[in-house]
């Protein structure tokens, strides 16, 4: 199964290297990793998608907290959240295929952002599933080049991941069933 989490960390040189080195060293299977600026100038946010078990997802969280630059880590898979991925896809088209691509874009609410003699670039944003099915359809037409951002995610409503969330004790969460 896939697990997503959102991590806030200090925006300092080398921190991304520390995070990536940690994932490699602990043998975590990272599906997608996106990094960008946040509402707080000193902090960056990372959305991590891992393929594995929940126990592994918890290990990732606990290991991240060992890095002094990591401020906050929250799981998003266990709360309502919005997940988005963006893809730019350059599709090979001729006069005949172009309307077909435009039609698909309409259905998937994708946009054509560049038109050239024999190709178009389409931009699609959405959940991974939707993008995957769009790509599948375009494959039959002919994909020349593709780039994806990886997923970004955010909890809905009150499920906000900010440093103000404060201190939460890490535990095993399984012990309720012990006795």
């Amino acid at each position, binding site marked *: 199964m896939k697990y997503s989490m959102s991590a806030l*960390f*200090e925006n300092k040189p*080398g921190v991304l*290297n*520390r995070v990536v*080195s940690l994932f490699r*060293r602990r043998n975590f299977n990272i599906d997608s990793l996106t990094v960008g600026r946040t509402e707080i100038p000193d902090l960056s946010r990372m959305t991590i998608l891992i393929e594995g078990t929940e*126990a592994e997802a*918890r*290990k990732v969280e*606990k*290991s991240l*907290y*060992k*890095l*002094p*630059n*990591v*401020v906050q880590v929250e799981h998003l898979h266990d709360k309502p959240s919005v997940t988005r991925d963006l893809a730019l896809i350059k599709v090979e088209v001729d006069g005949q295929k172009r309307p077909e691509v435009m039609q698909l874009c309409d259905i998937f609410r994708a946009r054509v952002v560049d038109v050239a003699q024999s190709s178009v670039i389409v931009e699609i944003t959405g959940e991974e599933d939707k993008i995957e099915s769009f790509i599948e359809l375009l494959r039959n037409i002919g994909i020349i080049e593709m780039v994806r951002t990886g997923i970004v995610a955010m909890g809905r409503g009150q499920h906000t991941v900010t*440093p103000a969330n404060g*201190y939460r*004790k*890490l*535990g*095993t969460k*399984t*012990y*309720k069933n*012990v*006795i």
Partner: protein
Amino acid sequence: MKLTGAEILWECLIREGVDLVFGYPGGAILPAYDAMTKYPQVHHVLVRHEQGAAHMADGYARATGKVGVAVATSGPGATNLVTGIATAMLDSTPMVCITGQVPTGVIGSDAFQETDITGITLPITKHNYLVVDVEDIVHTIREAFYLARSGRPGPVLVDIPKDVQIATTEFDYPDEPVTVPGQRPVGEALQDELDVMLEMISQSNRPLILGGHGITLSGAERELLKFVEKVQVPVALTLLGKGTMPEGHPLCLGMMGMHGEAHVNLAIQEADLLLAFGMRFDDRVTGDLSTYAQNSRKIQIDIDASEINKNVRVDLGITGDLRQVLNQVLPRLKNTDHREWHKLIRGWQEERHSRDIYNLEEGDKLYAAHVIRDLWKYTGGDCIVVTDVGQHQMWEAQYYPHERPRTLITSGGLGTMGFGFPAAIGARMGLPHEEVWAIVGDGGFQMTMAELATAVEQKVSVNIAIMNNRYLGMVRQWQEFFYEERYHATPMASPDFCKLADAYNIPSMRVTARGEVSKSVDFARSHQDGPVLIEYVVEKHDIVYPMVPTGAALHNMIRRPRAVTASSEKE
């Protein structure tokens, strides 16, 4: 007042309580060495190889509980620290390494003696820093010491380019305590965690504590003893857990794991509740995980959340400081006795005597285990013992009982050969009133024996006991068991250690018979103004028993063949 970066460095180190550093100068760290002359309150120990500096700082830290400091130059100086840093990392030693770096302007240009030491040590430090601005030195050094000692301790490296050491700025030392944004306070357990823990303890008939290094790191020895006596629960120790509980105590079973005593490992397999206190279920103590302690529920208390459920799935994991958690739980514990359980363990324990190397006929052989036992006996058993890695290390663990914390210093996690002798120098320099014995093998000693000169120069009274079996004994043992006795690359020639000692003007003695061990202790004690070297020429083909082969279940041990003793003949 304006100070140079180098001066600020020493000002900060002194404020952290540093009065002793181990190091080796070089181009990129020269400004710091030059500035050191203004701070006579800091004693510098010139080592003969930077690895020695790291191990000395490590030994110093383990013996005293303070942060050890190693200093090296850029490039090769820094890379020579690496083994020592990794050793400290795996055994959670608080240590700060200061390295020089090429000037900021040439970083990244493959300048002379440039290495990316923060990149190299990233996975083997708790944290590291490259300081690119003289303004950053104060808070970096403060953070480095804070991180090295707080939570689960570990090594921190601070890399300072030469131009940053030379640059000047106004020196201003803040009063407020250090805060690190990502650091979460870890202390007490939650109430419902305690409730579950107490319930599990009350339901248990065969409880067993697995005691690790974390007990000493959190200073929970007294609380542990109270806990043990109240619940009457026996304690099995990890290698680094030795000393956390007096081994003479009737409820202390001894060391567990690959070379642990059979009754200890059996107790783990038969227990119905394991209480893992500050230990991390290393593969050397669990053996095959799928057959490990299948009869028990498990409670793990560790200050490092990522250790919980890492190797062994536990039923209750408490992230907290062991001393604080035990203090929370102590008033709520009920007196129990668990007599049946103790009787069962005692039964297994009796079996030990017939197989004990201690009961072997000596004949004309000198067994390392006998030497170590006799060292314990004739020194009064209250020394600080620093071991190297290999067979002698395991015999030390089996035959030298420790009664006080921090009296056994050994490289457990990384298993670093060459650690013992320099770490013993560091330990003795930290505790000048203690008797320190470095028990080393002929292989490991030759890795770092260059530090003999350091010990002489600094007049460090360390007693070096070399168990010379003319083999890499532990590797040879594996070749015997698992590689059909092909003793390849394990027979080892050594110099005449006594002549070597002569070259350094170190008093030395060679022991070839058991009767001479007590004399060797007297000999060592009669020379207290510097190191003493004693070579024990021990049996070549001895084996550490019991042994759990890698990947085997913990109860499937290879045992020493029964010794023919007076008592077994009677049976």
